[in-house]
């Protein structure tokens, strides 16, 4: 328990007052084993605090390209360089494992995600992503419309979602049970609004909402949505059905770690409209693996790992001029305290924007204005092993299991996706801190010790699984201080995001936050784009053609 906090206060702050009403009395503390796992705050905070590191002269090496960060963006950039036949690069990652917020873990029975855990099947226009999936043997062909067809074992198993409401589980994410005619009429009207945006094309034939974001339209009819919050948009359209508003709010919390009141309406609609090929059609099916996007990370990492250094913090990037060309010196610190340096021609900065002012030397003295606009949410993620498989009331376990009356997002089951229908289950539980001020949320998260985190998780799950405290034999916790970029109104189409994408003195930026939303597709896109930029700067005949990212039709 953090100093100076009582359990009730902690739960009150974390879960919010309405939920505390259900927590009267002291619940028994978690009896299971577990620990707080990564990320590496010690090394990370040394970077933040601007540690003065000077590598000795014989600790300097050369590489044409240094990639900073081994999350999806950095790995994707490296993967693209490899595929282009360009091998003179090195990728430096702070953590001991690659993947960033897409990393995964492994229990005795099954692998499980620590963060991102699904990827909608791409539309045919997303060429580079299809190239990756083809390489992974995930696709088994194209359908009559030319859309890629995903092999069934990589799709989310049915039932995909279930929702817990008043003592019972129901199939699906929209709460159909007990919905009135008015509720259903609003759901239909909402779907019609989405269908309208799916069908919408601008003068250049671009979709309103496309993946990646950059392939979509910048027409004012679309971008003005960014000025509203999703809640305001619902108000304007006179959507009042509590179930519908819950669904939309859940979508915002799930994808962005924000409430509907805090989310840009552009981002809210993007969630619903970008994954549908044709108006009125089904959303693209979800691809997932027991370990979530950890499978994608593993594939990318396998392709590039010879040139990856894990456990290496980049503490400083020093741009300089050499014979009229930009050069970047990269100063690193490894876990054993050794300082090394790289003389690079180009750097791909595949870390989030908030890191840049701490690392890029000129940014330290003169912090770029756009950085402050990048806001990151804090998330608590827990992985737990549940030993009991007592059947639930109503719909049996699904892949995604959501509690209607909770600020948590519920859990996904790795064992379910793996095809284990009996025996111990592996669940990954997600809780976004949707506080107004991200810094306060982050401080709050980092004061929670393991027991407090376990209490938060088990206290929430207890509503649907009354005996959960006695059924869990291991519960590990990841505290993500900067889990995801937050698409608040005005950010997606504001000037800061565009400014941050501009290369700076040999440093090319690549991270999902540059899209304003945290998605595999966006991180992957920025990795491809930045790799294309450095290949062009290297005078390399780029494999990427402009048509790789064709406008979505």
């Amino acid at each position, binding site marked *: 328990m953090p100093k100076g906090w009582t359990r009730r206060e902690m739960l009150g702050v974390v879960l919010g007052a309405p939920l505390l009403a259900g927590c009267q009395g002291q619940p028994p503390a978690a009896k299971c084993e577990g620990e707080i796992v990564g990320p590496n705050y010690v090394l990370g905070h040394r970077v933040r605090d601007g540690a003065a590191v000077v590598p000795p002269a014989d600790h300097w090496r050369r590489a044409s390209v240094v990639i900073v960060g081994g999350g999806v963006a950095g790995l994707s950039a490296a993967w693209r360089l490899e595929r282009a036949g360009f091998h003179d690069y090195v990728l430096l990652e702070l953590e001991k494992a690659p993947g960033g917020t897409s990393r995964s873990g492994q229990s005795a029975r099954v692998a499980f995600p620590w963060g991102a855990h699904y990827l909608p099947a791409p539309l045919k226009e997303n060429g580079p992503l299809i190239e990756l999936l083809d390489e992974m043997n995930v696709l088994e062909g194209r359908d009559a419309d030319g859309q890629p067809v995903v092999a*069934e074992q990589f*799709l*989310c*198993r*049915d*039932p995909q979602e279930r929702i817990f409401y008043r003592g019972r589980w129901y199939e699906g994410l929209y709460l159909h049970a007990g919905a009135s005619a008015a509720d259903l009429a609003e759901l239909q009207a909402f779907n019609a609004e989405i269908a309208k945006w799916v069908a919408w094309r601008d003068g250049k034939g671009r979709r309103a909402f496309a993946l990646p974001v950059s392939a979509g339209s910048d027409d004012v009819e679309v971008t003005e949505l960014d000025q509203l919050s999703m809640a305001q948009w619902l108000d304007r359209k006179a959507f009042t059905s509590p179930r519908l508003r819950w669904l939309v709010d859940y979508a915002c919390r799930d994808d962005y770690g924000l409430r509907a009141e805090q989310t840009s309406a552009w981002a809210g609609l993007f969630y619903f409209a970008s994954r549908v090929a044709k108006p009125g059609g089904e959303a693209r099916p979800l691809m997932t693996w027991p370990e979530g996007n950890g499978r994608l990370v593993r594939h990318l990492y396998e392709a590039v790992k010879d040139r990856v250094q894990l456990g290496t913090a980049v503490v400083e990037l020093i741009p300089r001029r050499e014979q009229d060309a930009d050069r970047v010196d990269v100063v690193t610190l490894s876990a054993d305290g050794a300082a090394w340096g790289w003389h690079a021609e180009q750097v791909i900065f595949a870390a989030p924007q908030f890191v840049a002012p701490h690392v890029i030397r000129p940014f330290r003295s003169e912090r770029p204005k756009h950085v402050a606009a990048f806001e990151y949410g804090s998330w608590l993620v827990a992985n737990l092993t549940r030993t009991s498989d007592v059947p639930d009331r109503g719909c049996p376990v699904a892949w995604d299991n959501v509690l209607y009356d909770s600020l948590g997002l519920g859990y996904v089951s790795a064992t379910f996706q793996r*095809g*284990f*229908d*009996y025996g111990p289950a592996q669940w990954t539980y997600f809780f976004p801190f949707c506080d107004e001020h991200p810094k306060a949320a982050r401080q709050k998260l980092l004061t929670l010790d393991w027991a407090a985190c376990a209490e938060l998780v088990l206290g929430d799950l207890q509503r649907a699984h009354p005996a959960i405290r006695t059924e869990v034999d291991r519960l590990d916790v990841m505290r993500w201080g900067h889990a995801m970029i937050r698409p608040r109104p005005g950010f997606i189409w504001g000037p800061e995001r565009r400014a941050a994408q501009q290369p700076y003195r040999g440093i090319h930026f690549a991270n999902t936050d540059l899209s304003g939303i945290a998605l595999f597709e966006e991180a992957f896109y920025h990795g491809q784009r930045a790799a294309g930029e450095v290949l062009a700067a290297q005078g390399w005949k780029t494999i990427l053609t402009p048509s790789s990212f064709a406008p979505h039709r």
Partner: protein
Amino acid sequence: MVRTPALYINVLVVAVCGLVYELLAGTLASYVLGDSVTQFSLVIGLYLSAMGVGAWLSGYIDTHPARAFIEVEIAVGLLGGLSAPLLFLSFTKQFWFHPILYAVVFGIGVLVGLELPLLMRILRDHLNFKDLVSRALAIDYIGALVASLLFPLLLVPQLGLIRTSLLFGILNAGIALWGTWALEPLLSRGLTGMRGRAGFVILLLVVGLIKSEYLTSLAEDGLYADPIVFAESSPYQRIVITSSTAGFQLFLNGNLQFSSADEYRYHEALVHPVLSAAVGPRRVLVLGGGDGLALREILRYKSVEHVTLVDLDPAMTGLTKKFPPLANLNGNSFSDPRVTVVNQDAMIWLEASGEPFDAAIVDFPDPNNYALGKLYTTRLYRLLARRLTPNAPVSVQCTSPLFARQSYWCIIRTLEAAGFQVRPYQIAVPSFGVWGFALASRRPVELPSVLPDNLRFLDSATLKAMFVFSVDTGPVPVEINRLDNQSLVHYYESEWKHWN
């Protein structure tokens, strides 16, 4: 002053209760153990002899017969009232059922045997011996008649065994409670204690009565048409075997898997078309089929050198050890050295690789939940195909094309979508009705012209006829069953609703 007529009513109630407990025990014993003649005979004999023991013991109670009578009534109320729930709950514990049954019968018998002698001693002071014996015994025998009429006509059909038991326990304890007032002049002290105990027993049994639905569901009363002779819960399913004059029946989670009377039709149809179509199969794969009955048919083939049987549940593949009649029925097929048993989820097992099989038999329970629906998907059939030689034929049990027509054709089309050429066929199994199968292979399948000798159901003319479908079982348009849509489970649920 003690009122004599009231005590006669006491005798009547006590007599009725006593016989009801005896009937309950006899009925339950024959439910569970079958062979009702033996069970009733044993229970009645034990019960009557225990009553004798009780009567004899009453001679050792020298003082305070009224106090002893009330204590005995409380005890009968408790033990008799809980007898049926207790026996129902021990149904499944084969080892414990006999000792519990006989202990309960003996205990109640002793207590009931104490009742009448004690009552007669209480009444002794109010009547001469001649009248006492004639009236008390007459009322006792009338009580027996009342009970024997009430039990089959009213109690069992209206209340069921558990509620009857609880209700009569309440009556006994009620008599005890009432007796503390009626016999007050004969009871010097300890009234409060007796009333408290009687009240507690009544309360306990009333709670039991209110919760009897739950007790019944625990006890599976009324779930099966025939007496249960074996029951076991594994981590995966509830295994129940019932016994009837026609033989025995196996149920998994309440769903009939086979009846020993007509399973030969099912298993001959499942095994012989595919194994006769495979020319000289050496290695055969069975998915499901943990009862070993398909194995029995497979092992008829001299060419078969090895059979791998993959069934999730060790409790199923080990059932022959616990229930020997099954070993007789499957011809001890699990003891055959050619057979290897793997207790694993079939889909997970198929993901691994190994030497290919020359034929496969897929005999999973009907797809009534997602965990089973998974075993009928294109994914499973594709994984299966990887483990077969290119020409290997496969047979699949596909539920009923009559009762679950869409489900049946969904399985057929799913096999086709997974790259198999399919020949659908169906037979009649009296216990099931019209039942459907698929004969499939990645190459065109020729129907076999030769079948093993000495089959009870199949000959070559019957074989040909199986591939003909009636108008009401013919193809209907359906979706393909995939892991990500589980269409089959949805079809199956909606279709069987009409029939159950």
